[in-house]
């Protein structure tokens, strides 16, 4: 009974320590991750739901496919992954430490034969003299050796960078550190969004779960600008923000320019430029109407979509306006409006009028020339709000990973033994990585070794 219990525990332990499990987990993570790149994540678009069958929808929902990277089974995979990583390290680390702290000082026959790097030296001096000379030689050419007497022979052992065998364990530890950072972030951090109309301030924002959350200070949007390249592509989205405490600007946080890739951080909360738009309230536009045959220009103040009737019975309404037309009409710039004009008894026509191109407006061969003079409408800036106290732990993990991989791949534990017998000495070498490079170094040493005069 006791033995079967023991063997059961051993079996479970072996299971969690096995590299086959590691491979299985790595493949499983790789394969299942694909699901989330095909099935839309987060808020499922209605078009997508309309396009799949009801049973499929039900199964996907049950399996958490719409938020699969947070589904119980994906998280479970990550837990097993961590357990596998930790068990493997617990099992192997003591051996590695022993390997480093208690190196093989005496080179047995088996090992001697297994090394491909070796060299021979015959000498006429005494074995003591040979030993001393070779200790000095190794110290000078490689590193100071440990001397062990064994069966009338001296075994000299020298090594370099033994600690680099720990590199892979640093890599593995780094993965756990990154997980810890991610967990800290998900427990104590948050993400949200806030829209601020130009000239106004906010003291709270909306979290991703829809809940309002106080900022603890006020954030004022002084101005929002968009700039475009000549081809109509956006060049810069810029909010000018000021942080207010008790209604007063905080020194150093006044009129801060925030653009994409240059956020503003205050008290651990960071604001990222993410979107913009027209504020819904306010928003009057100025339209001019000039009779082509001369006569005074009339100026109208209109709201979007609200029709205006002129004296001659013509009605017009502003359909939409932009303060920068370039992305829609490359070659033009500045404010423009799309308006719909209906002469009395005629079908309505829609066209675009520009602020900066009166000639274009006049080219439309109609009795009335319409112009656009801009708006008093305000824009709002949309800012992503985030706080993540775990991010430094994640970067620490990343740094460990890079260092660990560097050590694991590009450094090697180099060992050289010299076995000194009477009148004869043999040199053996071994490296944990990059044998080819070590071979060159070894051959150089071995060459000198074989020409020693003792």
């Amino acid at each position: 009974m006791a033995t079967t219990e023991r063997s059961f525990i051993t079996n479970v332990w072996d299971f969690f320590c096995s590299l086959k499990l590691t491979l299985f987990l790595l493949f499983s993570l790789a394969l299942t991750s694909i699901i989330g790149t095909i099935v839309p994540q987060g808020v499922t678009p209605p078009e997508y739901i309309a396009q799949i069958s009801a049973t499929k929808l039900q199964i996907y929902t049950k399996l958490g496919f719409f938020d699969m990277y947070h589904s119980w089974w994906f998280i479970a995979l990550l837990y097993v992954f961590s357990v596998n990583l930790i068990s493997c390290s617990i099992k192997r680390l003591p051996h590695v430490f022993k390997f480093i702290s208690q190196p093989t000082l005496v080179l047995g026959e088996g090992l001697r034969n297994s090394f491909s790097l070796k060299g021979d030296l015959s000498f006429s001096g005494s074995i003591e003299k040979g030993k001393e000379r070779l200790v000095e030689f190794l110290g000078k050419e490689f590193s100071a050796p440990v001397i062990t007497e064994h069966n009338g022979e001296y075994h000299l052992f020298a090594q370099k960078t033994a600690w680099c065998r720990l590199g892979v364990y640093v890599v593995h530890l780094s993965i756990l550190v990154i997980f810890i950072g991610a967990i800290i972030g998900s427990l104590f951090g948050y993400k949200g969004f806030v829209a601020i109309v130009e000239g106004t301030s906010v003291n709270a924002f909306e979290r991703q779960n829809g809940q309002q959350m106080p900022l603890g200070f006020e954030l004022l949007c002084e101005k929002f600008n968009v700039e475009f390249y000549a081809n109509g592509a956006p060049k810069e989205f810029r909010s000018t923000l000021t942080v207010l405490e008790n209604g007063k600007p905080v020194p150093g946080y006044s009129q801060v320019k925030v653009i994409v890739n240059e956020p503003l951080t205050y008290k651990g909360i960071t604001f990222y430029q993410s979107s913009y738009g027209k504020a819904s309230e306010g928003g009057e536009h100025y339209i001019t109407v000039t009779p082509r045959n001369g006569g005074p220009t009339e100026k109208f103040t209109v709201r979007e979509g609200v029709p205006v009737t002129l004296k001659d019975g013509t009605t017009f309404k502003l359909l939409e306006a932009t303060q920068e037309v370039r992305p829609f009409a490359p070659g033009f710039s500045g404010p423009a409006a799309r308006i719909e004009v209906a002469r009395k008894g005629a079908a309505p026509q829609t066209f675009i009028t520009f602020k900066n191109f009166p000639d274009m407006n006049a080219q439309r061969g109609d009795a009335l020339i319409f112009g656009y003079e801009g708006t008093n409408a305000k824009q709002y800036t949309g800012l992503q709000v985030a706080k993540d106290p775990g991010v430094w732990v994640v970067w620490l993990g990343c740094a460990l990973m890079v260092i660990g991989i560097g050590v694991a791949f590009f450094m090697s534990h180099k060992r050289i033994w010299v076995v000194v017998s009477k009148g004869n000495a043999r040199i053996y070498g071994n490296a944990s990585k990059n044998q080819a490079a070590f071979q060159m170094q070894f051959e150089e040493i071995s060459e000198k070794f074989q020409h020693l005069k003792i």
Partner: protein
Amino acid sequence: MSSSMLFNVTTFTYLISMLAFFAFLASKNRSVGLAGSFIAYAGLVIQTVAIGLRWKESYALGVGHAPMSNLYESIVFFSWTIVLLFAYIDIRYKYRVIGAFVMPFALLGMAWAQMGMNTGIEPLVPALQSNWLLYHVITCFLGYAAFAVACGISIMYLIKSAFESTNTSAPAGGLMSMFPPLKVLDDLNYRAIMIGFPLLTLGIITGAAWANYAWGTYWSWDPKETWSLIVWFVYAAFLHARITKGWVGKRAAWLSVIGFLATIFCYLGVNLFLSGLHSYGGGS
């Protein structure tokens, strides 16, 4: 002399180099192989000048930025890194015949870029105006190129091992004698991935750092991010497979090929079939 002309010359040079390597395979004539290498190096130099010139031209247009900002520029850079890595392996390990399996990747990239894509220099949209773009793209593509080389080497491994298992009696003569021994191919595959894996890791980390800096989220499971992680898992599996009994040799070679297919999907497929934050989409 404009950069686009030089890119055309580069493409042509890579074509000639590849053909020379094929001729080398068929003829076993060493000087043909040497010619293949030298033509590839010449192409590399021309392409380097062309990339520098394009960089300069972008400043002349008033939209100055490093030439790595769209699909076209990234493919050109990808080809460049592949040839650079081939040159390294050729000079360091002297297995010239690998060129026959690696140059086609470089040629394919250049040909597709020159013929199928909009080659115009575009201004940078706000999201890309960051130095992180440079660090991120350079590390990722150096990694991808190393994986391309590893894939070429693995294909050689698979061909050679298939050939040897069917022709056990006759010593592998003919074409196969040109290939490095299986053990060497296996080792070179591992070495290429040892270059690619750290670079991919750095690429993912720089991408995460950039995303955190620009949006406040270092990881958002965007399809491109996820696919780069999938690629990373596959190569991590490769590294562990090598130290697991029964997974060396052929299976490792297959893993390397699968890894490269996943890399290509991460690079191109995601843009063509899935949607996300990354901008290397819509080549035309």
